[in-house]
């Protein structure tokens, strides 16, 4: 579980986040939604311990600031928005997800390789496991990133625009994977641009505006309040299938 309390963050003199408080419970998908530049990515980077902030972030009851970089990464896996393709193979990239678990001198064991192999299979990347990530499409690169955080085996997952670059079916499969991670008991905090997708998959939505939480609630509450339309400037519709699956569009 991630507990964010009165978090503020700045880039230089520009304040980006102001007094954010949010709880990301285990077993649920929490989505931070908002317009470009509202501070969603800064929120994730702060929670991941990648930039300084004021306030408190607790992960599984422990203040992140009291943890070392490596200990934080054992508890929180972070899928960055801008992934840098390298000349490493897909398998080797996924294996790097095991890095926080390596004792000095940081040599990967067979067990690490097995875990990475399993993550590669889970994300259907076996066919491209030996390809360089610089040769992959944006979608496959994104899947490689997800496989890497699966290999990291952290209990708390931060996803920054995980569906970017993906086609429609891949977007749904990826969010199904996020749902699966939540069902395994992990706390998932995702930043999504795609509002209908966010409302469909989220258990809780935090709408961020100008660096602060403007509204917070279940997707139904956010939809019913009309807040999303006010913030995003688009009309949303809802439908539900006979078996209870809700869709927003």
């Amino acid at each position, binding site marked *: 579980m991630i507990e964010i309390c009165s978090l503020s963050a700045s880039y230089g003199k520009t304040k980006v986040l102001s007094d954010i408080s949010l709880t990301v419970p285990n077993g649920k998908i929490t989505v931070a939604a908002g317009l470009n530049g509202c501070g969603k990515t800064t929120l994730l980077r702060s929670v991941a311990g990648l930039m300084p902030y004021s306030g408190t972030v607790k992960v599984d009851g422990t203040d992140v600031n009291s943890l070392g970089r490596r200990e934080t990464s054992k508890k929180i896996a972070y899928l960055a928005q*801008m992934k840098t393709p390298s000349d*490493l193979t897909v398998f*080797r990239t996924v294996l790097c997800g095991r890095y926080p678990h390596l004792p000095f001198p940081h040599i990967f064991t067979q067990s690490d390789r097995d875990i990475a192999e399993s993550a590669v299979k889970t994300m259907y990347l076996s066919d491209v496991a030996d390809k360089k990530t610089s040769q992959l499409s944006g979608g496959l690169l994104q899947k490689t*990133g997800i496989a890497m955080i699966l290999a990291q085996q952290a209990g708390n997952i931060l996803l920054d625009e995980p569906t970017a670059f993906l086609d429609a079916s891949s977007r749904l499969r990826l969010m199904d994977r996020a749902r699966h991670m939540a069902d395994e008991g992990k706390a998932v905090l995702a930043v999504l641009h795609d509002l209908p997708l966010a409302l469909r998959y989220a258990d809780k939505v935090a709408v961020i505006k100008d660096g602060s939480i403007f509204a917070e609630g279940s997707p139904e509450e956010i939809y019913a309040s009309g807040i999303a339309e006010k913030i995003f400037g688009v009309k949303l519709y809802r439908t539900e299938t006979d078996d209870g699956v809700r869709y927003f569009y």
Partner: protein
Amino acid sequence: MTDIRIFVLILSAVLVGSAVLSICIGTVKITPQQILRALFSGERDTPEARIILYSRLPRTVACILAGAGLAVSGAIIQAVLANRLASPGIIGVNAGAGLAVNICIAAGAVSGWMIAGMSFLSAMVTVLLLAFAAEKTMAGKITVILGGVAVSSFFTAISEAIVSVDPDVGLMSSDFRIGGFSAVSSQRLLPAGILIASALLFAFLMSNELDVITLGDDTASGVGMNVRRMRSILLITAACLSGASVSFAGLLGFVGLVVPSAVRKFTGSEGRIMLPVTAVAGGCFVTVCDVLSRIIFRPHEVPAGIIISFIGGPVFLFLLFRDRKGQEI
């Protein structure tokens, strides 16, 4: 047998062959049997044994160490700066080390440890300054290269000024500016060799870190790496390798640029394979070039740096334009 294994086998064979040839050729011809006798039978008082032990062997070891050091230094710098055009020669690290050597010679501080240590320190300051400036200004790849070229020119200008003011330095450092091994001595080689061997071992141990850092700052931090600290550690290692190499081999160009790029074509970028193979390939390349520098214009000898540039320039152009297809480096 995989392509990589065949490549490593060929490299190893060429390295051994060129090393033996490097010891054998010269004004006094040496046979492989004489090498074995001088090295293993304790027969060290013959003229041939003295030539082997005090002239040819140090020169050959110097070629291997300088090649391995500069090549691995280039591989590390390229990975850390995420820039295939970066190398200790291009971004001014070698020029910084060269300036330190000239200052040492001008000041009369010509002990092996002093020259190797100052070269290392100067190379380290250069690479860290450049990396710091690049990070602070979020400079692009080409900007970093151009900044390095400017730094290199600046240090070279200071070196030339020292040579102009003190012609004795010029006499002692003419080979140094081109790069070569004709004046290598055990006294100069030993301290630098210890630094290079230690830094190579450390670099091999850091191969997983090198892989992680190539994933980008946020991803590397996300898997638990203190990126800023690790970048500094790796760049200091690279500076140690290139500074120590320059201290006895001079300003050899292209080794740190061409060898890692060529090796990656065969091994990929995984550090635990790429770094050791780069070390072997670097040693191999420089030793072959040094042998050629003694053979091509016989009975005259040209500095090895000239042969390295003759070969390195076209090879780099080939690697630069082959398979590029409009992609950014």
